């Protein structure tokens, strides 16, 4: 079944300017419980944009100009090489008993990879970079790094 036909809980489109990413119950100074809204997507992005730029300047200072661009290019190449495989289907993963991603983002990546979605969404290269750094640190993760990742 193509990814697009799958019902995804919480997948309703909302206004990005007002949509908050999380609601939490907090205790007020009077001891009452109240709901606290998390930041909106735009707030999170704008809050971290300056930080990202500042860190980039520091990385360039240490590694030299062009390094961050090179890093992004390499990671984009690695992720594109993977996402263009298109040799399997979502059903194939399920029939093999391979756990499907839990998040909408993970499912979108999978659907691009198996060819049921045309292209990926903005970003992605750095996400791939961090994913491989986190590899082996998740509980139950395989101990061996996929050997095919070492080739482009």
């Amino acid at each position, binding site marked *: 079944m193509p990814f697009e036909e799958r019902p995804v809980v919480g997948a309703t489109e909302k206004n990005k300017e007002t*949509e908050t*990413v999380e609601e939490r119950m907090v205790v007020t100074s009077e001891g009452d419980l109240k709901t606290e809204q998390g930041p909106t997507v735009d707030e999170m992005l704008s809050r971290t944009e300056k930080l990202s730029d500042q860190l980039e300047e520091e990385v360039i200072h240490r590694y030299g100009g062009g390094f961050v661009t090179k890093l992004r290019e*390499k990671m984009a190449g690695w992720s594109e090489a993977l996402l263009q495989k298109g040799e399997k289907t979502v059903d194939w993963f399920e029939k093999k008993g391979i756990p499907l991603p839990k998040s909408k983002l993970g499912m979108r990546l999978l659907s691009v990879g198996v060819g049921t979605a045309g292209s990926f969404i903005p970003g992605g290269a750095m*996400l791939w970079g*961090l994913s491989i750094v*986190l590899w082996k640190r998740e509980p139950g993760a395989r101990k061996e790094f996929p050997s095919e990742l070492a080739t482009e």
Partner: protein
Amino acid sequence: MHHDIVQQFEVLAGGSDHIVEILGIHDVSVEDQALLADRFADIVLKRLLLRVSDDRIEDVKRVLSEETSGPESFVSVLKASIPDFDDRLREVMDQTVADFRLPSRTMRK
């Protein structure tokens, strides 16, 4: 072949799921999840690069400049160049979650 491809998807999807979880962004659109996850990854990776020992910076640059270098060599050189890598990674993840102003929930030991 195919076993390795499956593993690659596990890496990517697992990383995505993990970031969506710790940022608490399950309910936003997939496009926004991608933007936020990529920004998060961008900041974490830059912070890790800034924790590389001075004497290993050239090693990291060399690995990135090699035509045939892949993700495995990138991870290896980072691990070899950042003292106490696992602790530093946890630190950086927690710090970055805080920068998004959400409590860290999944990096606890």
